[in-house]
């Protein structure tokens, strides 16, 4: 079973709201001093889901990322978790793209890779939370796409995935090759072992440019984008919290109930 996993490096998702700043000139995040980027959490879950298939069935896992400014110990995390190889798609022409152009580059990389059974990605990347790239790639490649999956199983040429739809859990099947997007429902991602982190450090990623992928630079990055972020800003939260007091925590609790009555909510 050969799995390709799309992973994105994003600014630290755990920057506390109080330290979260944006650069209004570039409409990007201005991370605080000393913060390190991370692999988008749901992409880690996609890697985890791929590794579980590999654990069960054997085969290989290749991580693929479009990333012009990789931090090596971050972007190599899938290798440390157990992926076999890493392909980085890098080109100044990729700058300023949107989900549509990102998908165009990723789909070109998949075509260059050639053979695979399953593509996994996150349901949405933790920077723009778009939730588009997976579906776009599947459409471009003309393969089935199952979004927001949890448990996966591969049986006789088909991928079988569980999806939570409201109060219903659906089991969906599609013939492979197929693409799935990982949701929270995958569960927890494994922690890399120190030994594996060291080994990953010694592995070299393969790097492909627009030219390597046979892409016309005017169809990717800002030039090819269909949407444009006009403004990125942090909303001022107006509400001031009133902390309710009491002689004891219990009394404060009673005061909260009284407050809700005063507001006629209960």
């Amino acid at each position: 079973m050969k799995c390709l996993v799309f992973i994105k490096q994003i600014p630290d998702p755990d920057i506390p709201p109080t330290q979260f700043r944006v650069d209004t000139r570039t409409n990007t995040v201005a991370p605080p001093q000393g913060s390190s980027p991370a692999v988008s959490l749901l992409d880690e879950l996609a890697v985890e889901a791929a590794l579980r298939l590999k654990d069960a069935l054997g085969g290989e896992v290749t991580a693929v990322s479009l990333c012009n400014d990789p931090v090596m110990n971050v972007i190599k995390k899938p290798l440390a978790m157990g992926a076999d190889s890493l392909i980085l798609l890098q080109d100044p022409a990729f700058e300023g793209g949107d989900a549509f152009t990102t998908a165009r580059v990723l789909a070109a990389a998949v075509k260059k890779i050639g053979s695979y059974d399953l593509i996994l990605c996150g349901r949405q990347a933790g920077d723009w939370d778009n939730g588009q790239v997976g579906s776009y790639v599947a459409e471009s490649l003309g393969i089935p796409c199952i979004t927001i999956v949890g448990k996966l199983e591969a049986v006789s040429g088909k991928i079988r995935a569980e999806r939570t739809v409201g109060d219903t859990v659906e089991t969906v099947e599609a013939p492979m090759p197929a693409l799935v997007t990982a949701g929270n429902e995958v569960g927890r991602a494994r922690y890399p072992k120190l030994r594996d982190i060291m080994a990953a450090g010694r592995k070299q990623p393969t790097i492909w440019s627009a030219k390597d992928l046979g892409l016309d630079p005017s169809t990717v990055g800002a030039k090819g984008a269909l949407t444009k972020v006009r403004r990125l800003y942090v909303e001022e939260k107006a509400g001031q919290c009133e902390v309710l007091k009491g002689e004891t925590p219990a009394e404060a609790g009673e005061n909260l109930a009284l407050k809700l009555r005063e507001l006629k909510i209960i």
Partner: protein
Amino acid sequence: MANGAGVLIVGEVAGRELAGITGELLGVGRKLANARGEELLAVFLGSGIGATAAGAFAQGADKVYVVDNSLLASYQPESYAAAMERVCAELTPGILLMGATYMGRDLAPKLACRLKTGLATDCVALNIDPQTRGMLATRAAYGAKAMAEVDCGTVRPAMASVKTKSQEPLEPDSSRRGAVVPIAVQLNAALAKTQVVNRVTVEVKGIRLEDARIVVGGGRGLGSIANWKSLEALAADLKGAVGSTRGACDEGYCEMATQLGITAKSIAPELYIAVGISGASQHMGGVSFSKHIVCINKDAESPVFKLSQYGVVGKWEDVLPAFHRKVKELLAG
């Protein structure tokens, strides 16, 4: 499709009624259509839904269309995308909206890719740029820590999916009526590349989370499955429902289906009571449309206080029983 006119919403039905999101889409769609001086159109895909779809007139639609086909009885990605491609070719809308629902999250990007048009997902506000007449979408980014205004581009139809509960439906006007127009679409079963082979529905006890007037949310701070019961008891007395965080789900305190947040359910109750929840932006992004938010947390520095109207600093073990007792007393008296 360079030119297009009209604002088209993709309606959804729940049983024999319009789903809540449909009214919300018609509400925001009406505003956009008025701003562009165009008609508001609604389309429904399904099987035997014509009578239900007619309800969209009262909620603001100028024209209502259905694609009625047994292959559309329940959502199937390729069949729905093919039907919508046909609908767009026929109606040539300038703007296309759907809900960021289970269907919309799957269908919107699939369709946008086929139409090669710009899509903004999970939008909380939509406006028309007076200069370009294009659609500007406001949506949360970076785990709901920031807001982004996105220009949906010049290809028609410009697309957006709208966050559930983020828009106000119009006051229904039963004098608004019309004939539902069928759109014929050639479909065949072989289009479907994915197949649902099994469905298991978890029986929800009591009120559905999305419909509850009061929601008690629990987080990792609850500490155990046994403790979760105290939230359920409180919610039952308030005739409300229990929601949860990723933290609580990861610990196995509750069902995944109860999770609230940007990658889970979003709700807009009258009151949200956050207990043992730190207030991470990704969680609060799913509850931020609540009318009132209050919290109980032992750590006064927790971000949840920043987003709450009232809060109590203390261990829930100390605060919640007294709160619950008082609530019962007030409700009885």
